[in-house]
């Protein structure tokens, strides 16, 4: 039987926020820690179930390897897609530098 994890801490919330690319203020961190803890506490009911032998379900129906005929078909127009991008250069998405050192 799985052990019930400790309530989520502020440090853990700060960690998952970083993983999810969210920056939180101190007040938000405080608020979300309490709220996530209460949702996770509710999930203690499934924590406590002894269902090691039950197979998991990832998808309601067993559809797999869904393939279509390999026939050419038009795709989205590049210019139309790029027109919606925040920044574009030479037909590509432009982003700020990836490494933090100055070029």
């Amino acid at each position, binding site marked *: 039987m799985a052990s019930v994890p400790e309530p989520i801490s502020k440090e853990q919330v700060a960690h998952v926020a970083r993983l999810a690319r*969210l920056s939180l203020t101190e007040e938000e961190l405080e608020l979300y820690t309490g709220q996530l803890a209460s949702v996770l506490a509710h999930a203690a009911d499934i924590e406590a179930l002894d269902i090691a032998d039950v*197979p998991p*379900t990832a998808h309601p129906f067993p*559809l797999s390897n869904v393939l279509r005929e390999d026939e050419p078909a038009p795709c989205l127009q590049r210019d139309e897609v790029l027109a919606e991008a925040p920044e574009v250069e030479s037909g590509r998405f432009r982003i*700020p530098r990836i490494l933090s050192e100055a070029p």
Partner: protein
Amino acid sequence: MRVREEGPADLSGATGLSAQEIAARVRGGELSALGVIEEHLARIERWEPSVHAFNLVMADEARERAAAIDALVEGGADPGPLAGVPVALKDLLCTRGAPTTCSSRILEGWRPPYDATVVKRLASAGAVIVGKTNMDEFAMGSSTEHSATGPTRNPHDLGRVPGGSSGGSAAAVAAGFAPLALGSDTGGSVRQPAALCGVVGVKPTYGLVSRYGLIAFASSLDQVGPFARSVADAAAALDAISGHDPADSTSLPGPHESAASRLGRGVDGLRVGVIAELAGAEGIAPDVARALEGAAEALSSAGAKVEEISVPSVTYGLSAYYMIAPAEASSNLARYDGVRYGLRMPGQDVTEMYMATRSAGFGPEVKRRVMLGTYALSAGYYEAFYGKAQKVRTLIIRDFEQAYRTFDVLLSPTAPTTAFALGAKTADPLTMYMNDVCTIPSNLAGHPAISVPFGTGDDGLPVGAQVLAPALGEPLMFQVAEVLEQAAKGQAK
């Protein structure tokens, strides 16, 4: 009955007609599609400022489209089974060239370069899109209060929520802005607002309706479904949008029986199981429980064999759902990074840009769920939370299989209470999540379910009864729902 002034839920003229009546008259040349859309637009102009069902009203496009349909009819052509029928779309269905926001700042101003398959199918059935409806941001919520454009209000009582997350679509149909609307249902987001707004709402079998162009929330659960003011209209709408789509790898191969194929047959001899764990669940308000007893009695009087049935694992549905859905959402919403579309906030490097963009673009509920999902999937917690939840999902599927050996359909309340006051549940996320307790099990199993208005609560507001069916059991589900609808009308007289 409460005595009150005329409100947004009191319908008349073309805005009181069913979708099928409109289509029949437009196809027969007795009613012009343009006239129909003008009446609906006038009603929107009158009541939309109070209700806020829409993020975008597409008046010019709708008039143009209606005129084109009238021209087809004049030329002797048939525009299709939904000829001239106004339809409202939840603002997470992509419409080429028309803003699609998910009620989020992060997609503000984005114009999709393509139409969702369901939008194309509506067009080829002759429908007229009236606009894009408000919702909880990225479909995360049960009240339409978590919207960057402000809350939608319930047409039956403007101080109350319409439910959510497809609250704008439910309110639009209840207020006569359109006889049909589409929403999406991941944990109850069509059925729960339908119940709270007194309209019919359908969550089809997973894979029956294409999701190409539906902006993803939780991919193993999401399904597009219709709202209507009658069971027959809802079946007609589902028939118009369902069917295999090669552009969606989760789309079930067809053909499928029409959802309307068993309408009019009654319920004589059918076996209906009332789910004990949901009908009498803690948190189900006494007036809702009473209305459900009335629904069970109505089916029994119509000749069905109605008995209570235990589906024990559904009580774990809420916990399983609030691990699985946020986990899938945390992955699906990783794409909103300020690179390809929508909002971008400045940053010195790309990571700073991601963080600034996502922190400014997402509202609090989306942030909560993304963090919850990231946590549930993270090293050391995966087995305890996400893995356990997937196993519970198997238990729920097995329990339903067992129940459907004895019963043709199952019955439960749709939502635990009638519409609640704005602001009543926003402070505590868990209290809000409890709204989905009766609707979640069908999503986890991939089964269809429908909410039909049945009776009212102590406050005079609508209550919904939920009919659940096994996978691809839509024809039977609509057959039973129609009998409930007739019984509810008989009682209201």
